[in-house]
């Protein structure tokens, strides 16, 4: 800073790259060390035979990937990750779209309603998930109680929400949706306020009904913001292991295992760092794709 001082004064209020570099390099250096270096290490591990507790480390080429691709748990995890993410995004977009329309106009108690609606997003995800674990409990589930009360099931004969593969998958998707709907709703609300009010109003005067206004005017205009919600939502779901870990820990019989939870089970709990790292690397293509789409969007906004 002391060296940069006098030099800047001569430049005046314009840019001063030297001072700039001095000010941003600590942050950049930190990010390189704590994100860049571990990422490189993850790639390195994936091609090695690293294990917790063993000192020897050998390069094994594609061996890890070969054995992973042959393992049924991995295929299941890959499939689940995709299924969970896609299902959750579809449900979330539809629900939060409807909810954002309903929340748009001011009404009495909107602040409180907004707070309640936002709770799932703003509360720590692990705590929300443990709340759901109680709601989906095998014996004391409130859902079961309601179904018994409605005489849909007999007592003690109701389904085990987290104990049967398909129900467990549905439960995981449900909790992901529960958590993401608030986020998506607020993003879409922000997007809707950017739509000029005159256009839908003009359409209404011209006799366009609710659905027609929605599909031909509101939706196309909201598309960029829906994209934002879906891109972030995809990342939050695809890379999450908290919901699965707490609800089912991947069970029953790996039926709800996802890539992150399998990487944790293999790499940390199973001490097989190499295989765990290789599994988590399968997240990268999706992340790269999303980063690319976001860059394109940011670029477009810059040009417009």
């Amino acid at each position, binding site marked *: 800073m002391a060296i940069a001082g006098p030099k800047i004064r001569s430049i005046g209020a314009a840019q001063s790259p030297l001072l700039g570099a001095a000010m941003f390099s600590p942050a950049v250096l930190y990010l390189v060390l704590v994100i860049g270096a571990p990422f490189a290490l993850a790639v390195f591990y994936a091609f090695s035979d690293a294990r917790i507790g063993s000192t020897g480390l050998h390069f094994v080429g594609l061996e890890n990937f070969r054995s992973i691709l042959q393992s049924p748990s991995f295929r299941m995890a890959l499939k689940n990750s995709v299924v969970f993410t896609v299902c959750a995004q579809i449900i979330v977009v539809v629900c939060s779209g409807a909810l954002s329309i309903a929340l748009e106009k001011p009404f009495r108690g909107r602040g409180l309603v907004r707070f309640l609606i936002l709770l799932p997003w703003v509360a720590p*995800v692990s705590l929300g998930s443990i709340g759901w674990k109680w709601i989906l409990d095998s014996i004391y589930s409130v859902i079961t109680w309601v179904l018994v009360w409605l005489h849909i099931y007999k007592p003690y004969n109701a389904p085990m929400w987290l104990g049967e593969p398909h129900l467990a998958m549905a439960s995981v998707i449900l909790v992901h949706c529960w958590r993401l709907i608030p986020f998506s709703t607020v993003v879409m609300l922000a997007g809707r306020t950017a739509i000029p009010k005159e256009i839908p109003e003009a359409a209404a005067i011209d006799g366009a009904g609710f659905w027609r206004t929605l599909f031909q005017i509101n939706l196309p205009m909201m598309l960029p913001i829906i994209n934002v919600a879906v891109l972030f939502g995809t990342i939050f779901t695809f890379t999450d292991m908290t919901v699965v870990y707490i609800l089912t820990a991947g069970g029953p019989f790996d039926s709800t295992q996802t890539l992150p939870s399998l990487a944790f089970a293999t790499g940390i709990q199973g001490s097989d760092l190499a295989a765990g790292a290789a599994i988590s690397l399968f997240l990268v293509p999706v992340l790269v794709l999303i980063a690319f789409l976001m860059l394109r969007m940011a670029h477009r906004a810059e040009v417009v």
Partner: protein
Amino acid sequence: MIRTGLRKSSARIVHGTVLIVFTVLLAFPFYWMLIATFKQNLDLYAVENNPFILNAKPTLDHLRLLFNETRYVRWLGNTALVGVIVVAITLLLAIPAAYALTRLTGRWGQRLGIGIFLTYLVPPTLLFIPLSRVVALLGLQDTIWSLVLVYPSFTIPFSIWLLMAFFKSIPRELEDAAMVDGLTRFGAFVRMVIPISTSGILTVVIFTFTLVTQEFVYALTFISPESQQMVGVGIPIFLVRGDVYFWSSLMAACLIASLPIAFLYNLFLDRFIAGFTVGAIK
């Protein structure tokens, strides 16, 4: 006339129904935590009782158990401590970086800013395996310092992004004026820009703190002893003894930890969302 009237009132009914259904569904787990907190065990575990209400006198036993016989308070303390330190580190690194990238480095600073934002997309589940070795190598395993080291990696990128948007909105003339008055460029940043940026900085403080409390994967991976836990891991992992779930105490713990965080986050929500949507709304 009658038809439009009907249409309007049916639209209002749909509107109200959507709001009520979603509010109930989204907030229900928290109601469920609240009611479980005060339920007597006899009531909680009686399948024939109506679970939506208290069928017996409310009890404080579960709260007593939580505060007296578990490490809950310690976990809250750990979380607060890590939160405060990570906030300090984040501010120290993110404020100068964001200012430099918006004001001092021109167009490529903006690009670098977007690059930094993209690192926010790198999830803990990609890095936790190599980082667990790094943490072990540094001797930080099983201490909260491992989290202090790693957490800024996800708080700094988004904070820089939020602050860049904030600094952009400050008129350049303010700095020019300060420099005419004899301050250096850096002096103008410290004495002029930072004081008028308090609301942006406060947003970063809240955002960072809530992210720290919400993190799960690193805390689960790096720390095993019960006494060193963060609240987000301690509750779901350590309030379960063997296979026994102390459901009421668990729910109380979740509720008590969630509400203040939710409240804070809610206050600043619009700013965070503005951070997420920059680029799509203009």
